[in-house]
């Protein structure tokens, strides 16, 4: 009966969107590293813990008044809520429960409520035993003050700050990653202390019994010496004891140096990861961005252009010096191999990246990155660079939307420059927006004031615009002359006055940026609101 009730409850939870939303909200609040409210919550908790610690310091010499006690209770209540929420968030109990239930149904074995509950609680308890969860729990216990020894738990309240600082977590990770070295060191240190304690006790106890009266004194002296602290409250009196002390000081120095070097090495390894993480979290905040693979000559020029446009981008390159260069310029950069799925995914190819530019100097790599990106995201725009003519086709096959050849374009520029310098300056000027005149396309939205209008009725000259042509997919226009086929649409050059505009046609206009912007604004505002 009870089993049935729990089962019903679990299914209700599974179906309820409200439950899911609530859980997601608390996940964002407490656990999700990328969410904004978590950082506010962390800040709030840090302030609260600091206040409570200040209160505790005050309490050492003074008695609490009513207000302080209330404040203390509020803090603890918050701690308890936080702890319970975290335990709740650590996994989905109803899923485990239902999974077990469905398994029993499938295998036709009897459903045992006890096993199901054990499965559910095993995971919760595993979470509760993690260091951070234990600290949380002990910080709550610290409310119980009467027992003097329990005052130690107040320290856990300070340790609770670990939760809210991400950087401290990093230090714990560093220690964990060097576990083997640290174990070795600890065993060596243990031996050293053991030998030191025994020999000091043997050598000193008989002649210097006031100072070294027990084995504990010997241990205390050994540790103080090995750590090169040397309080001087206990000092060896016999020649043998002093020799041992000298040996301990030198070996202590060695151990300390070794320990420091391990930590420093681990930190410097880790710091790179942290930087990459920071890049990723910053990318996550952008609404849209472009991925540039390869920060060579072409990549650098593109980055400069995009920076001018205030368009967000991230650079991926596998050469360290190039990444360093990108970072010096203040760009987001990831030091990795862009042809690996993991790298592109973590850079956000499936999230907010709008385009990928493959600009490495190696065609093989460009093809590989293009293929990988297309495989990961069928809709993303891929523009790739081909250094050799014969590879253009391969890049299109690999899934590139557009392929560029640096030398081909440059030779085109040169050839035109030789023949018609003025004409070419004009077109290059328009493309590069050097002369304040730009060529832009404006879309005729359905229902806007241009929809269905003949060109004769639009006064482009009065708007200080020049109509170069119209790009359209509409079959209705096909009777017009000057038709040029583009990829999957047609370009109508110099259309006649009888040309009737259709929705989704693109006007190719030449003019000053202000005139084009104003015309775009007129089109947008005349379009019916959805």
């Amino acid at each position, binding site marked *: 009966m009870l089993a049935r009730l729990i089962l019903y409850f679990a299914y209700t939870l599974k179906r309820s969107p409200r439950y899911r939303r609530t859980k997601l909200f608390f996940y964002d609040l407490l656990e999700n590293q990328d969410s904004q409210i978590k950082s506010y919550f962390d800040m709030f908790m840090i302030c609260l813990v600091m206040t409570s610690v200040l209160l505790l310091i005050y309490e050492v010499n003074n008695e609490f008044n009513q207000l302080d006690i209330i404040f203390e209770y509020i803090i603890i209540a918050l701690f308890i809520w936080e702890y319970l929420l975290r335990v709740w968030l650590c996994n989905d109990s109803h899923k485990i429960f239902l999974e077990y239930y469905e398994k029993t149904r499938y295998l036709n074995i009897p459903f045992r409520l006890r096993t199901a509950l054990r499965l559910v609680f095993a995971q919760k308890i595993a979470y509760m035993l993690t260091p951070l969860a234990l600290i949380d729990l002990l910080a709550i216990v610290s409310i119980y003050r009467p027992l003097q020894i329990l005052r130690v738990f107040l320290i856990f309240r300070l340790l609770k700050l670990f939760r809210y600082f991400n950087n401290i977590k990093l230090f714990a990770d560093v220690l964990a990653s060097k576990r083997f070295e640290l174990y070795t060191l600890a065993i060596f240190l243990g031996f050293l202390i053991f030998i030191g304690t025994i020999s000091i006790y043997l050598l000193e106890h008989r002649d210097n019994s006031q100072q070294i009266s027990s084995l504990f004194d010997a241990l205390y002296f050994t540790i103080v010496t090995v750590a090169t602290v040397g309080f001087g409250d206990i000092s060896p009196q016999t020649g043998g004891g002093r020799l041992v002390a000298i040996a301990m000081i030198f070996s202590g120095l060695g151990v300390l140096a070794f320990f420091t070097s391990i930590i420093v090495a681990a930190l410097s390894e880790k710091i790179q990861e942290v930087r990459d993480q920071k890049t990723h979290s910053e990318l996550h905040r952008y609404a849209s961005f472009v991925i540039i693979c390869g920060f060579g000559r072409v990549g650098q020029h593109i980055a400069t252009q*995009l920076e001018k446009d205030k368009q967000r981008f991230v650079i991926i390159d596998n050469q360290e010096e190039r990444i360093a260069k990108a970072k010096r310029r203040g760009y987001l950069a990831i030091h990795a191999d862009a042809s690996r799925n993991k790298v592109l995914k973590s850079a956000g190819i499936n999230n907010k990246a709008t385009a990928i530019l493959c600009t490495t100097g190696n065609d093989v790599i460009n093809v590989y990155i293009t293929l990988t990106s297309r495989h990961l995201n069928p809709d993303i725009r891929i523009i790739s660079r081909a250094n050799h003519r014969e590879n253009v086709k391969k890049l299109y096959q690999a899934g590139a939307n557009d392929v560029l050849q640096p030398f081909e374009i440059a030779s085109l520029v040169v050839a035109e420059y030789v023949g018609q310098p003025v004409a070419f300056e004009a077109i290059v000027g328009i493309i590069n927006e050097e002369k304040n005149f730009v060529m832009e396309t404006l879309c005729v939205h359905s229902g806007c004031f241009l929809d269905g209008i003949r060109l004769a009725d639009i006064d482009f000259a009065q708007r200080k615009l020049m109509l170069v042509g119209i790009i359209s997919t509409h079959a209705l226009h096909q009777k017009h002359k000057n038709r040029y086929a583009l990829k999957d649409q047609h370009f109508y050059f110099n259309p006649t006055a009888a040309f009737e505009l259709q929705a989704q046609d693109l006007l190719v206009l030449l003019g000053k940026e202000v005139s084009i912007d104003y015309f775009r604004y007129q089109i947008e505002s005349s379009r019916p609101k959805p």
Partner: protein
Amino acid sequence: MKQIIVFGYSVMSLEVMKRLNSKQHTLLFVSESDEEAERIIEQGFNTTVIDFRNDDELKAIGIGSSADIIFCFYPTDSDNVFLTISARALDKELSIIAIVDDPESAEKLLAAGANKIIDPYEICAKRTHNMLTKPDVTNMLDNTVFGQHDLNIAQIEIPKGSYLEDSKSSDLGLAEKYNLILIGIVDRELGDALHFAISEKKHILNAGDVLVVLGPSNEIKHFKEAVNGGYICWN
């Protein structure tokens, strides 16, 4: 007929030579070694082998006399700078076009006397950027003006005695009469800068002014004939 001399074997030099119309220009490729020269000859270009460091040999192939344009396409910037300095010393009027590998060398090449510097990487980057920001316009230009479709941009200089002299730029009506679009004008009264046809100024055309038009090559040819009073004149 312009005489063009191309120095240096690179992807660029072959691409440029293929693009230049051999009816309008005579091309000469200068090679460093016989082996390289053979490869170029196979592609069907005139080739000679000289050492570009030697001024007498440069003079022998026409620099300072018959050559109009030289291309410095050596892969290393220092070679290009050296060649530019030598050529400029021999001929003040020569048009020198050089490619640059390191952007910092651009200034040095200009100081050495080059007329136009080409940075292939920068051009490629700009195009990539255009493709990203204005895919429609770039795609259209690629397929028409730069591509295989017959739509060209051309410059037409107005000769003395042309019927266009003293007419207003706004009254030309090229779109209706010739199916051409007037993009801009170089009005010699205002200097050598290009003025776009949509700016407010109404230009009075004189001999020596240059019209920049966009249109099918056939129509451009017709218009040129009309401007020149019946004679075809390749500028």
